[in-house]
């Protein structure tokens, strides 16, 4: 499988990365090199093989469903590029 220029632009939009036409053209070649490389996986017989979900067999750890952390609004917004009274500020989303 390979990608064309339109697919590169569509995927870049899905990934929320702005790309210029020149960048997209360059990426088309690079992505196809990588996709060509991973193509060899089609040689492997995976019939009846279970897909890996956890590399070490261990039961999922669970904890009590209780509040055990919080009250850190100041810490959470401390690194925000724009914030106001413990809210993150973003461009207008709803008209």
């Amino acid at each position, binding site marked *: *499988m390979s990608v064309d220029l339109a697919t590169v632009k569509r995927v*870049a939009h899905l990934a929320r*990365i*702005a790309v210029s036409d020149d960048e997209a053209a360059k990426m088309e070649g690079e992505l196809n090199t990588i996709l060509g*490389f991973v193509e060899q996986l089609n040689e*492997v017989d995976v019939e009846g093989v279970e897909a890996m979900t956890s*590399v070490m067999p261990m039961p999922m750890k669970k904890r009590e469903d209780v509040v055990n952390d919080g009250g850190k609004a100041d810490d*959470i917004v401390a*690194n925000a590029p724009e914030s106001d009274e413990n809210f993150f500020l973003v*461009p207008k989303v709803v008209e």
Partner: protein
Amino acid sequence: MTRNVRRLKSDHKNMTELTRLTIAEAREKLQSKDITSAELTSAYLAAIEAANPFINAYVAVTADLAREQAKRSDDRLAKGEGGALEGIPLGIKDLFGTEGVHTQACSHILDGFKPRYESTVTSNLWADGAVMLGKLNMDEFAMGSSNETSYYGPVTNPWRGRDNNKALVPGGSSGGSASAVAAHLCAGATATDTGGSIRQPAAFTGTVGIKPTYGRCSRWGIVAFASSLDQAGPITRSVRDSAIMLKSMASSDPKDTTSVDMPVPDYEAAIGGSIRGMRIGIPKEYRLDGMPQEIDTLWQKGIEWMKDAGAEIVRISLPHTHYALPAYYIVAPAEASSNLARYDGVRYGLRKPGNDIVDMYEKTRAAGFGPEVKRRVLIGTYVLSAGYYDAYYLRAQKVRTLIKRDFETVFNDGVDAILTPATPSAAFGIADQDMAADPVKMYLNDIFTVTVNMAGLPGIAVPAGLDDSGLPLGLQLIGKPFDEETLFRTANVIEQAAGQFTADKWW
């Protein structure tokens, strides 16, 4: 005048003598009060100041914090107290969250980020008395094998070929960690390994690096790249030092659901033990076409050293080895595209204004991510997108099951550890044209290391010799899950036979 010059010279000598000490040696001298942590820390800070313009290993130096920590360590040592790493100055890879200190995964998108928390691994180190010298350079988001994708510029390998002054890469992604340890700019360093990012740079710089079993070190507070593959580990100047550091770094952590609930063994106690009767596997699939003769010769030497120490050599097959790297280049980018979705210009780091919120996201991410990170995010987004999930991601995860099964089969047949080369070549030049032109060429650096991440196993790289041009080469030992002790024991045999390697100072 003459006296001053003489004194300067003797200060310089003392400084290099202090920074040359291994962690184990420094620990002994600190405990016997031959030296203080303040002296040791000052020596390292001076060494960093002198070397960093040439090596570029540190992206942030925390001199004031280091001096404060050193003073507290000296107080504790004076009272006969102190932890396992009391007063030992370490460098920390920029991927580890350190409270109030530069933490940017060497990416532009995390500009100015100073977390309000401390990663579990670094918390463990400080609890054991270690001193932080600063944050170490790395490939952006740990994506790279040469440390050239860092927003802060490449790191230079302290090693150079015998016949020329060509600047070489230290490997990656933990290139700052490896260079800092090799150039004596810290006693040891934290690092992380997703496909070989501890072991490949260790091999390129003549240092020791271990990636422990998945789950041994908590991933909490470490910037995530590919969560099912990422593991933290140390890079040090000796096998013993790696054992000392890993014991402190490893823990069971309720904040990481993949952290294992098992006690951390005393790894250092495993060193020096006999390997007589141990079965060491030699996988035929690791002999590559076109592999440099020197790598093969080194591997044969390693086999002889194992035999001389009484181990039994067993020829083994790991038939799916060839497919580990292509499967990795689906799984890792897929997980990365998901993990890196959080960098949106809202909660931390860089923000570029846009006409609306999507425009703001797209401009921020376009400006904040470098080319390699963009490539991987796009590959990951593509293989996870509607219609392609089964063909790529699901198939890769099935291949991963087969890779793990290969290892399980040989371990069940009685193999105790597997010996392979660590890398397919010695360190290459900065701005290598072949690698720059073809991303897959760069990816092939991890061909011997990536299988270990795919199977979650522990792997250690240990220096084993120099190539014809005088550059270090490493061997890798791969162990059973949570059997790091066997790796320390066998790696020590190689270290004893090969000796330790130090770069000639040119900076």
